[in-house]
């Protein structure tokens, strides 16, 4: 699946996005965030506090308990601040 990062999540990780293939036990968005955090470095920094992360699966906003099976595009980002 394709991951996308925005705002300070993107800056901490140093990537706009990347293709990933998480293990089978990574079932939800919350699992995915925890799995990415374990990579350390910029990932650990970006995902140090999962409560500060929002997500969209296939361009729809979701909660942390949303399943990721079959998703093509998952975006991880801070709470929005536009307007």
């Amino acid at each position, binding site marked *: 699946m394709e991951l*996308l990062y*925005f*705002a*300070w999540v*993107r800056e901490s990780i140093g990537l706009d996005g990347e293709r990933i293939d998480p293990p089978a036990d990574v079932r939800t968005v919350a699992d995915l965030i925890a799995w990415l955090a374990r990579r350390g470095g910029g990932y650990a920094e970006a995902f140090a506090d999962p409560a500060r992360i929002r997500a*969209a699966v296939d*361009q729809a906003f979701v909660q942390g308990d949303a399943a990721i099976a079959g998703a093509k*595009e998952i*975006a991880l*980002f*801070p*709470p*929005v*601040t*536009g*307007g």
Partner: protein
Amino acid sequence: MIRIAAGPEDFDSAALVVALEALGGGAVATFTGLVRGEGGLTGLQLDHYPAMTEKVLGVIAASAMERWPLKGITIVHRTGLLAPGARIVFVGTVSAHRAAALEACHFLIDWLKTEAPFWKKEHFADGGQCWIEARAEDDAAKDKWV
């Protein structure tokens, strides 16, 4: 008539207002948000999620259309690096009723602040940069419409 745009180009508030006035609704309300140049701010960077942005703006507009008797909605949101004084966002509504136009305009900007995938970063004269944090009062402002 729903008119939605997101992108780096500046927009012409004057022309947007005149276009809304021409829809024959009797009541036109608008809001423009601009970059303030306080505290040594030299620029405001607007990130967004291009594939989602206009879709979300369309959902927000459709939601306003369901709640109020509107003849038109315009939402324009800029992205990229903006200078102090630059326009960031424009929201305009048209209705036969002034309260509908005014409330829908207020609703749209409150929802944009908390539901549309934009992120703001401040750039300062001393080289400092700072991502703006989401504010609880913005969530509260949105929640009053639920």
